């Protein structure tokens, strides 16, 4: 069971995250926070019109959130913004255990499939993606910062992970 979560590929991304090098120039940028644990990440993008040229990801969080961001950085480089959005929707659906678009190749991201079985950790894996969406939605000039939380994106309350807190 735990092996579903800590797959070798996830650990590998955690130990040596992609996208960690600072970008020379940033067209979009957002910071995100997982309100349940307080962990944070930053997503920066270099765009060429409608295409993602380069991705910067820095996470201060658990292995799942860092690996998810690292995989994201690896997979979305070179994609069009529309493709990025489709990928995001598919990853989110997979993480929430609702299945995913079979026509899309998720690459390394497939390794995150097992997270769905750990409701408490789903928001960890979503954090970079919510932050990415926020960065994209910004029409602001380069370098403008936005702050989001995974609040809007997590599984609804009432699941086994329901409730807030963060330890007693």
């Amino acid at each position, binding site marked *: 069971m735990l092996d579903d979560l800590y797959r070798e590929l996830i650990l590998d991304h955690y130990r040596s995250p992609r996208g960690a090098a600072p970008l020379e120039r940033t067209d979009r940028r957002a910071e995100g926070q997982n309100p349940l644990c307080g962990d944070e990440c930053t997503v920066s993008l270099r765009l060429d019109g409608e295409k993602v040229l380069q991705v910067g990801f820095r996470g201060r969080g658990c292995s799942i959130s860092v690996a998810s961001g690292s995989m994201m950085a690896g997979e979305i480089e070179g994609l069009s913004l529309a493709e990025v959005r489709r990928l995001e929707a598919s990853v989110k659906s997979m993480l929430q255990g609702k299945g995913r678009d079979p026509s899309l190749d998720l690459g390394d991201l497939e390794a995150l499939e097992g997270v769905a079985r750990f409701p408490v950790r789903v928001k960890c894996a979503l954090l970079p993606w919510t932050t990415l969406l926020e960065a994209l939605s910004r029409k602001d000039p380069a370098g403008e910062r936005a702050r989001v939380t995974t609040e809007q994106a997590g599984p609804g309350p009432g699941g*086994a992970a329901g409730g807030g807190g963060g330890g007693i």
Partner: protein
Amino acid sequence: MTPAAGPEAARRAAPPPEPPPLDAARRKADFPILAPRPGLPPLVYLDSAATTQKPRSVIQRIVRFYEEENANVHRGLHRLAEAATRAYEEARAAAARFSGAAGPDHVVFTRNATEAVNLVARAWGGMHLGPGDEVIATEMEHHSNLVPWQEVCRSRGAILRIVPVTEDGRLDREAFRRLLGPRTRLLAVSAKSNVLGTVNPVAEMAAEARSAGARVLVDAAQAAPTAAVDLRAWGADFVAFSGHKMCGPMGIGVLALSGDARSDLPPFLFGGEMVRRVTLEGATWNDPPWLWEAGTPSVADAAGLQAAIEYLEEIGAPALHAHEVRLTARCMEMLAGLGGIRIFGPRDPSARPGIVSFWMEDVHPHDLAQLLDADGVAIRAGHHCAQPLMARHGVVATARASFYLYNTDEDVDAFVRAVLRSREMLAPGPKGKHLGI
């Protein structure tokens, strides 16, 4: 003859088919405390309106929680914390289903019905009641659905108006309509009286209150025991009840919310679990419904409540209702046969199932309860936390027998026999006729 009045209409208007009768003797065996005890008379427990007994499945659910799942809930990353969280949130889902709420996130766990009403009075009332606003309650409310409104009205400068009770123990609907007005903010009414047994027309009253722009709180403490709670069908905003009166444990209650109520109810108590971010300067709140649950909840009791809900659902509301009506009819008839007894509330047993409050000449309720106890019959004597209703009927106390799913015809007979014996002891000589029981 209108077209609708043919056999077709008759069929449509026919009452629903009788549910299979509740086998109370078999149910009794589910309740360890009701088992025969050597050396003592069998326990005839007729105080279920105060608190019901607990079936084995409820007691065992609590034990299983402490023996296999115990941990603190929320965010725990170990197996027990997950099990405890699951138990707690499954109980919430069961409570939502049971109460007709839109979903688990429309259910708040409290300690009891009293705390649920206080939550609304304090949190909702503190935000939505101002000087000159009006709250309507009734003359038959339990103190727990009256005093919180007196207090919040006093502190907010609002006005509490009271629906009177008629001679036969029903709410005066005409008077209620006259009380409704543009300043009415909330109607607080019980679904069923704990003294008279009267089942109130809460759906109709709620509709009238809502069209006057008011919110509606239903005290369902006495309706829950027969699984007769339905926030949606009632059109209520807040529904409050207690686990311990419906086969569940003490220490757990429910406040079910409508969507509207859920979105404008501020926090109640403050502390762990109900917050999101806390700094030394201030805090932000967690999502509903956790926002109204400060501190470590009573998870074992919530799990026990779920077992109780499942127990009641298995029997079903129609069978529970029919059983209580039957015992009530039998009891009222036999008491009337004794003579010299005044029974409060509606005369039709089906309008007041399960509860018989009365006053007997020459035997004070407290004496009666004490004498009955010696015969193994447990009833309650007193004002039943409804002093205004006592005053309305010109008494300070009544004797109350209340019947539940584990009571049999024999229990009713034993009760009436014991009543008769008490009267013979305190006021001997022929009074009314003896029943051949």
